[in-house]
């Protein structure tokens, strides 16, 4: 009750017109007990200050509650905890559950079942995932796979508004978690494999009305660029999103938004990454192809672009940059820097100045060979010509990382202000890349590649690492027999949590990586752990089990739900089905 009144008080302040930044700060400063937005805070740190579970007692963690979602798709994303309620969003059909944390068995308060088109299952490139909901102003806001954003009354489960934001018929689906800043709901669409014209939209929190739409590529007029206010650190001139493409190839050039969005209230900037350029044969689209595989910084109020930086110019490897942009203040060379840290699919971890977009550090965090280094003065990677792909290059062999990424953008890292370290899953896969010309046909895949994977160097397929982003060095690494696909959580007790693809949920010492406890959760973990304090005053950790999120992971006997669709195991993951199978479960652990 105390918590509820405090919340009401904060919103009361906001309603009285306390100003835009303080309202944002109020949303960010909800109690330690809660987890009200996808990455817990606007900086996307996934750090919970709770410290009851510590390195001293974490070995005593045990499961205290489980819930089968009844859904088989890959369970990415994470639950929310707001006051005394836990909210869970499932993969398609995007059911929203609200659980009462005040009662012993966490009974259901209500369940919201939207009517979501089944066609979306086949249009989503890589499984029918959902990356979570956002809570603000008494509303649970999340996206439906078939291209809608909904706001649901957090108390009653009643639908408040539902807005179509994406066009399924053009290959757009929506898997990302929205970010709400003040009265703007920020959303984007997946579809980099369908030749979409990628965009970001700002909806009105109260009504769901689309207030602005800006594209991630194309002419300045479409991109929300004003030449006097757009200051990219390494580029200049008008219409960069159009001039860096041949002819009108930008019209179907991709740049989807399927990760998360973060926000700096002081700079009043939102940050998000864009996905791959399409089609997959880079020779069909000569040029840098801005702003695919990039980070964009925009004003949340009107969507205006302030700066942009491209991690992978002329993407030739499906290196989406949709992984999380984590905002942290770091000490670099004796100075405190307002930094942005990003672990890219391309295998490099980037540390940028988030006010200007200037590059400070760029070092590989996973095995990679497509670029020798990244030049800090020009911002450009030194691409190995032997790893350049395209129809004229034939079958280019042994490119690392694979197009699954040095880390999947669906596996968000965490940052601890106590250890000053970043924590992330990694994949150690390489690929061959045989490009082919692609034929654009609306509503069908626009790809043109054959890209088989193989294990990377070292005999392991993934790991979980701690990373010093001020220096660009790995501090510790726990190697795994399979690619690691879960998000990370780090706590005030200096415990870091992650899951593995073969279904272990792991608690480790954030300073050393030493495993403190682990438990087999019934299906591979591709979700993101969260921590909260329940009404009983105790700290808990919750995570989804439920392998999926990429069809490569579901090859072979992983699936048992469709008797008419039986596939051979993937070469690079031969015996994964021996260790896990599909199925969504919410797990809660406590002492």
């Amino acid at each position, binding site marked *: 009750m105390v918590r509820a009144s405090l919340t009401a008080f904060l919103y009361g302040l906001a309603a009285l017109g306390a100003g835009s930044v303080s309202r944002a700060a109020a949303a960010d400063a909800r109690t330690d007990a809660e987890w009200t937005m996808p990455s817990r805070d606007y900086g996307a740190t996934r750090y919970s200050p709770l410290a009851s579970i510590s390195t001293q007692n974490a070995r005593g963690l045990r499961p205290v509650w489980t819930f089968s979602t009844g859904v088989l798709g890959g369970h990415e994303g994470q639950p929310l905890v707001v006051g005394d309620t836990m909210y869970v969003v499932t993969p398609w059909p995007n059911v929203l559950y609200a659980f009462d944390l005040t009662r012993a068995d966490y009974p259901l308060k209500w369940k919201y079942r939207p009517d979501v088109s089944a066609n979306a299952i086949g249009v989503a490139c890589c499984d029918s995932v959902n990356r979570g909901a956002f809570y603000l102003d008494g509303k649970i806001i999340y996206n439906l796979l078939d291209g809608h954003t909904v706001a649901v009354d957090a108390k009653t489960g009643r639908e408040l508004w539902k807005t179509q934001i994406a066009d399924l018929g053009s290959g757009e689906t929506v898997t990302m978690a929205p970010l709400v800043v003040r009265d703007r709901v920020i959303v984007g669409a997946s579809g980099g*494999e369908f030749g979409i014209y990628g965009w970001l939209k700002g909806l009105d929190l109260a009504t769901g009305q689309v207030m602005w739409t800006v594209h991630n590529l194309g002419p300045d007029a479409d991109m929300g660029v004003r030449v006097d206010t757009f200051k990219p650190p390494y580029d200049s001139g008008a219409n960069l999103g159009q001039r860096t493409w041949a002819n009108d190839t930008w019209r179907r050039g991709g740049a989807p938004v399927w990760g998360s969005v973060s926000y700096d209230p002081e700079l009043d900037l939102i940050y998000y990454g864009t996905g791959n350029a399409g089609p997959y044969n880079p020779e069909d689209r000569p040029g840098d192809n801005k702003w695919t595989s990039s980070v964009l910084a925009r004003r949340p109020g009107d969507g205006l672009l302030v700066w942009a930086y491209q991690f992978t110019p002329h993407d030739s490897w499906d290196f989406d940059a949709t992984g999380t942009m984590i905002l942290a203040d770091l000490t670099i060379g004796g100075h405190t820097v307002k930094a942005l840290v990003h672990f890219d699919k391309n295998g490099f971890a980037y540390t940028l100045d988030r006010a200007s977009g200037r590059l400070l550090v760029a070092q590989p965090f996973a095995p990679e060979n497509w670029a020798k280094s990244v030049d800090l003065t020009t911002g450009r990677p030194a691409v190995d010509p032997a790893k350049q792909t395209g129809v004229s290059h034939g079958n280019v062999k042994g490119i690392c990382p694979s197009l699954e990424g040095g880390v999947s953008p669906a596996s968000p890292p965490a940052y601890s202000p106590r250890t000053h370290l970043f924590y992330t899953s990694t994949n150690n896969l390489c690929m061959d890349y045989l490009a082919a*010309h692609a*034929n654009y046909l609306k509503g069908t*895949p626009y*790809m043109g590649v054959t890209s088989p994977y193989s294990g990377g160097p070292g005999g392991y397929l993934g790991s979980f690492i701690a990373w010093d982003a001020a220096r660009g060095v790995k501090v510790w690494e726990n190697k795994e027999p399979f690619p690691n696909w879960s998000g990370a959580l780090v706590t005030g007790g200096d415990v870091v949590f992650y899951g593995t693809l073969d279904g272990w949920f792991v608690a480790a010492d954030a300073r050393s990586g030493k495993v403190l406890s682990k438990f087999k959760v019934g299906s591979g973990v591709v979700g993101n752990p969260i921590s909260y304090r329940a009404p009983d005053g105790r700290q808990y950790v919750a995570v989804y089990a439920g392998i999926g999120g990429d069809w490569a992971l579901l090859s072979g006997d992983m699936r048992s739900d469709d008797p008419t*669709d039986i596939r051979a195991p993937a070469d690079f993951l031969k015996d994964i089905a021996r260790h896990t199978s599909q199925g969504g479960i919410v797990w809660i652990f406590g002492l």
Partner: protein
Amino acid sequence: MRPLRALALLSVASIGLCSCARQSAPSATTGVVPPAVRYQAHLAAGGTPPAGGTLTNPHAGDAAVAKQGALLFTTMNCDGCHGGDASGWVGPDLADGRWRYGGSDAEVFSTIYYGRPKGMPAFGGVLGTEGVWTLVTYIRSLPAPADVPTESWVGN
């Protein structure tokens, strides 16, 4: 790959990609009776299946048409969902001898022509009857395994 793709496009043109885009129904459908759909998912009340029109593949078993269909499978981006060798990706495996919506020529025709509810687009509008039959001929030419193996790790 360039000449290959040119050939594929030529094939599409030769089967009338543009000219039959406006065609409204498969020409082989008889009268007002819809085509017969008798796959497993449809149970007949009273044990009596309804009357159904017939659809006959004019190219059944024609290896040259199947080869043309293989090119069409790529040109129409079928491989983007079903995999380059039709062995499954987002969409199901088409070479495992098992079918969600029936595996006869007529049933596969219906699936491609009208689409299916989990994201399979209707290609009848863009390909027309002849184009769809060409694809059917290719898909039906894929050798189904005698048996679908079950994984065993015993002794591994």
